[in-house]
């Protein structure tokens, strides 16, 4: 699968250096990359389509600066990975405002570049969408795992709560758990399996999943926290 990379950089040499590193990276770690260079923010944003996987953005750009460009980018595309490349380290500190993954200091050195790109790739890998086919009381349905907020089980009656509504099914929780991606679904007590993607808050022994508060058992609290820690660390 080819990853599409956008490089927004006015310095021609710096942009070509990044391309060169991308080639070196793909030689070292495999994978296909297609890079597109934009020399200023306006040209990047004006024809933007959300089919880039990663954007390398310089902060010091002529006209609109990188931070402002990033803000506008986020209005159009919430999920593309963003890495700032800049010598203005102080401004990059605020990268969280635009959900930047990280930043690289200029002049760019290969090791920093590869380390941060690896982090980025791991994140993209974990974000891959999985689908589930289930037999429910409404017949066979196909669900996107990311739409499931949590699964409730009472003996063998399974209720799958999603952003679009509820579905009922029948079977064992264990079997269902084995069909769900392990890095985003975790048990919070004997009856509930929650999707970490939709976990918003944990307070004492309760967890807010989507808009529902569920109870967390004493035994599961620390493992739930650990799962959220690792999920946010690697996927979000």
């Amino acid at each position, binding site marked *: 699968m080819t990853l599409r990379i956008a490089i927004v950089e006015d310095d021609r040499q710096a942009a070509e250096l990044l391309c060169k590193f991308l080639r070196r990276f793909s030689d070292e770690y495999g994978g296909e990359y297609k890079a597109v260079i934009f020399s200023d923010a306006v040209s990047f944003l004006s024809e933007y389509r959300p089919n880039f996987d990663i954007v390398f953005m310089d902060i010091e750009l002529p006209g609109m600066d990188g931070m402002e460009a990033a803000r506008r980018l986020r209005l159009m595309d919430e999920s593309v990975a963003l890495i700032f490349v800049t010598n203005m380290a*102080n401004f990059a*500190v605020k990268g*969280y405002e635009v959900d930047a993954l990280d930043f690289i*200091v200029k002049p760019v050195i290969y*090791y*920093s570049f590869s380390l941060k790109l690896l982090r980025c790739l791991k994140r993209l890998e974990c974000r891959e969408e999985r689908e589930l086919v289930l037999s429910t009381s409404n017949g066979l349905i196909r669900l996107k795992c990311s739409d499931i907020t949590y699964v409730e089980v009472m003996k063998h009656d399974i209720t799958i709560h999603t952003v679009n509504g509820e579905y009922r099914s029948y079977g064992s929780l264990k079997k269902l758990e084995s069909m769900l991606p392990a890095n985003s679904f975790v048990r919070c007590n004997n009856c509930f399996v929650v999707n970490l993607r939709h976990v918003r*808050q944990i307070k004492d022994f309760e967890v807010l999943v989507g808009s529902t508060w569920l109870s967390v058992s004493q035994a599961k609290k*620390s493992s739930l*926290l650990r799962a*959220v820690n690792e999920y946010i660390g690697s996927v979000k």
Partner: protein
Amino acid sequence: MYEPSKLFVYKSLFMVEIFAAELMFTFRLKRRPNYPLRLCAAFLSCIAFSVAMPIIGYNARDASILFVILFLVSVLALSFCYRDPWLHIFFCAVAAYTVQHLAFELYNFIVVSTGLNAGLPIDIYGEDAAHFSGLLLTLVYVDAYLIVYWLMALIFARRIRQNEDLRIHNLSMFALVVLVVLVDVVLNAMVTYYSYQINNSFYVSIASVSNGICCLLSLYVQFSLLNQRQLEVELNTVNSLYEQEKKQYTLFKENMDYINVKCHDLRHQIRKIGQRSSLDEASIQELEGVISIYDSAVKTGNETIDIILTEKSLLCSKDHIKLTCVVDGAKLSFMKASDIYSLFGNAIENAMEALSSVEDEEKRVIGIIVKSSGAFLSIHFYNHCPQALQIADGLPLTTKHDTQSHGFGMKSIQMITMRYGGDLSVSVENDVFSLRLLFPLE
């Protein structure tokens, strides 16, 4: 008084048993010079003393006194061989006596309950003339003692670390242990002498079991006290390091504020001088830039983080380390300033330490990402780390040699994380070390 009665023979055997047990527990203590010679001399004098020791009477009280005196003499002999304070030696000796007694009770129990001695208890405390008790009994004796000594060495003696502080501060608890052992000895003597009169093997075997359990419990308590002491020491170290860091933070902040004020004044002066000499704006700004030591400071929205990151980034650039930070400082307002300073300080110092042996300047990289997601705050420290790390109890073991006085940075970070109900996760992948902290927010 010097008839070769069973007790007469046994008291020397007892000395050997006690001495062997004591050696088991004292092997990590600091030895005096010419240790082998001293050890032989001590052993021989103990044996000599035990032979020479007169038997005052054949009853529970006198036998108990006899054994306690022999025990104390052995402790004295040990202090001749080891340089440690006498409380350390006493700790080991009490444990040793408990083990010896346990072995004795086990032997007694086996012999009496299986009827090996024709249902009679071992009358090693007896007045009659000593005689060889037969091959089977001797075999059982040797086996019982070997098994107990070996097991106890495995479970307890191993816990005594080198350069350990064996002084139990909870003296009352320790006194309790000593009392229990003594009582056990006295009670045992009473049971033994009583059983010579009344032939009741059931009663004797029950008494052996309960005495044996007493020994096990008192060993357990004794070593729990030791463990408690070790934990106290660790806690004190972490706390005092934390206090030091707090002072450091205050000092650095004062320095920084003072220097900033002076720089501000200097910049004014430079501007005035520049304008008077008709210098162009660009040159004036260049001169002003030189004076801005802390102006290129980090601004994350949280003053404490700004200070610690500024301090550390100066250190990093001095060490040719590239430190990148994406930090949403405002979200850290729930944490005390001293906790923030300690946590970030330790994490960055650990990373710098890991990089100290890395010569390739390209690889000297540290990254910090602090951002919120929902009602969670995620803190991620990562750095290049060529060494393989061992992880114990979820924390990496220190790579420094002196394991007892290092590794506290991580422990401190863990303590702070727990204080705020957070989670700490450590991982190493592709030569990159990652420390991830998660805090639930209100």
